[in-house]
């Protein structure tokens, strides 16, 4: 089953070098594998949503560690006019020889104040700053050690207590959908029954569609995968947005020690697929689509930012002629109509001045005769 088993690599087994047709480049995937393990990986995950929706607990559950020891929780009074902060935690984790530099970006204060107008601004500013830093690094002369601090994925926590998306949710997701891969989650899903969850998800999917919110889409799996894999892939897609539960504590359930929440009426197991979609989220986010999230960030979101940035500079440049670009970009084509007109006007003025001077010279010359 996909959720528990190891991710399948499609790299072919080593070829037999004594075979007639052997060339040997089928080892390329293995060479690539070896090099990537040596280089290591990095990933930046952002979590956003109101306080108390279980963001930190979920991150701890996902990465099986405690990233938020000794943090201070604010009380309601302190949060009335709280501004949104951006905090970053970076850790080095390693598993079976694969090194990952993981950065979690938290947005404490989001949606907590009484007036939350434009509470998304610090978030977009942060994302843009990372894009800009990367753009500058990528455009520099010496590109030896560029660090990728761009945000690869944003988990957005939707409270389960209402009926669907609220204005703050819609606004946030719409503004962020062009800058980062947005993955909406139903937080604290242990307060909804399976039927309620189903309805809630349907509602959310409808509203997301209606509002034109573009969330992260899983790419389709290859047609040559086996039927079991394709079935699992379908199930994964149909259960979005994922309803999640997280836990910092380990409890005893069905003879095993598992992460869970202990209630008088039973034990909620985080990793039980019948209880919540935590395992699906972990599979998708970490085991199967982590690299795709990075690729989409690099190939789409970053490229859009870069193109916009250049075009803004270019339009300014064309009205100022001949300003040197601080970064290397291709020389622009013809300046726009406004500039042309201005140039023409100035040319004519100069011509007139020249003619006046000539006339005066002539007059003098005539009078001398």
């Amino acid at each position, binding site marked *: 089953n996909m959720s528990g088993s190891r991710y399948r*690599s*499609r*790299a072919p087994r080593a*070829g037999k*070098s004594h075979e007639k*047709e*052997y*060339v040997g*480049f089928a*080892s*390329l*995937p*293995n060479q*690539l*594998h070896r*090099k*990537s*393990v040596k280089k290591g*990986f990095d990933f930046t995950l952002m979590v956003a949503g109101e306080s108390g929706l279980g963001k930190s607990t979920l991150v701890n559950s*996902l990465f*099986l*560690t405690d*990233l938020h020891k000794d943090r201070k929780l604010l009380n309601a009074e302190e949060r009335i006019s709280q501004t949104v*902060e*951006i905090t970053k*935690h*970076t*850790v*080095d984790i390693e*598993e079976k*020889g*694969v090194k990952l*530099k993981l950065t979690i970006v938290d947005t404490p204060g989001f949606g907590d104040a009484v007036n939350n107008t434009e509470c998304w601004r610090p978030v977009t500013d942060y994302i843009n700053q990372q894009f800009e830093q990367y*753009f*500058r690094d990528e455009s520099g*002369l*010496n590109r*030896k050690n560029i660090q990728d601090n761009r945000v690869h994925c944003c988990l957005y926590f939707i409270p389960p207590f209402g009926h669907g998306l609220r204005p703050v949710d819609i606004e946030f997701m719409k503004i962020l959908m062009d800058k980062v891969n947005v993955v909406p989650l139903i937080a604290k899903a242990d307060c909804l029954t399976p039927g309620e969850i189903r309805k809630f998800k349907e509602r959310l999917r409808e509203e997301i569609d209606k509002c034109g919110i573009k969330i992260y889409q899983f790419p389709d799996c*290859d047609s040559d995968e086996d039927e079991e894999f394709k079935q699992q892939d379908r199930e994964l897609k149909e259960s979005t947005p994922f309803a999640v539960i997280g836990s910092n504590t380990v409890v005893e359930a069905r003879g095993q020690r598992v992460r869970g929440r202990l209630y008088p009426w039973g034990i909620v197991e985080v990793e039980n697929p019948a209880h919540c979609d935590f395992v699906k989220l*972990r*599979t998708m986010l970490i*085991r199967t689509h*982590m*690299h795709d999230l990075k*690729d989409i960030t690099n*190939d789409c979101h970053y*490229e859009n930012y870069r193109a916009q940035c*250049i*075009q803004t500079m270019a339009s300014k440049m064309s009205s*100022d002629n*001949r*300003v040197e*670009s*601080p*970064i*290397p*970009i*291709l020389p622009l084509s013809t300046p726009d109509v406004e500039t042309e007109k201005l140039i023409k006007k100035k040319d004519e003025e100069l011509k007139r001045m020249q003619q006046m001077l000539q006339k005066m010279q002539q*007059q003098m010359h005539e009078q*001398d005769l």
Partner: protein
Amino acid sequence: QDKNIRPLNLAGHVGFDSLPDQLVNKSICQGFCFNILCIGETGIGKSTLMDTLFNTNFENFESSHFEPQVKLRAQTYDLQESNVRLRLTVVNTVGFGDQMNKQESYQPVVDYIDRQFESYLQEELKIKRSLHNYHDSRVHACLYFISPSGHSLKSLDLVTMKKLDSKVNIIPVIAKADTISKSELHKFKIKIMSELVSNGVQIYQFPIDDETVAKVNTSMNGHLPFAVVGSTEEVMVGNKMVKARQYPWGIVQVENESHCDFMKLREMLICVNMEDLREQTHTRHYELYRRCKLEEMGFKDTDPECKPVSLQETYEAKRQEFLLELQRREDEMRQMFVQRVKEKEAELKDAERELQSRFEQLKRLHADEKATLEDKKKALEEDQVSFGKRRAAAQLLQGQSLTANGKKDKDRKK
């Protein structure tokens, strides 16, 4: 806010150890690409070696020895082994080493390599770019075919490799190695390597920084340059058909390690280090090209300490600078214009004054002359009048005297 990066222990299996596999799967979907450049004299066996290495029959045609200049011919093929697709481009030199004057022989090769770098750079600098779809044509490996003279490198070899060593991964091979005996080969290899070292030619070293392959790479580095024999013909040896060349005195088997280094070349070039060759091309040779090109275009790197906070700010600063400069120049021009107008005005005024004074002068002269003339006229008139008077008086006198004379005559006659 950024805490120091600290290593963390995991309490269980998270699953990100699949990251390399995720990367690999994506690459398999996309396919790989590899570009080899073969440099060597006409007839030395470049095409045959490529056919042998890739177990296929690329389109080949015999080149003549009478090419006026060195040319390059590139051909692209799509190969597949298991589920791995490879887009291979083989570039061969045509006419290399045939001309009488070989001073410029390296130039078309350098130009070709630079053109591929330039093409990639252009794509990178575009506003709307698609690097993940880009067909990379940059040369990843350069096989330099050394003639099996048994003595040393040719001067052309040294000159060419020196021009190329900072642009491409050079892998020198001794071609047609079945004409050299084992002992001669050993001496030949040593001579070649020492000539390369003493002339500072940087050939490609198989990487030894990865423990998985360090041992085999180190050992292979010691066998460079590889002495190769190529053949697509098959000969029966024992009970198998093998790629070989049949001579009266024996059969040279391509894949026999005691006959030549073909297997070593295949192992190193394709099976172990193909990805490293691509990586070195991108991170070292291309970056060098890019840096030089951008510096030529006038871009400078600021060091990290004085980097301004935002790119937009850098741009704004430059723009302000430029606008001020523009304003200054405009003011300057305006001042100059005003100045020149004043000067001209002054000149014209002077001219006017001069004219005026000349006019006055002329007027006075004229008046003087007129006065003189008037005087003369008056004098003349007076003369006229006195003359008139005198004439009248004279006439009167004459008349009186006539009358008196007439009366006298009359009186006599009586």
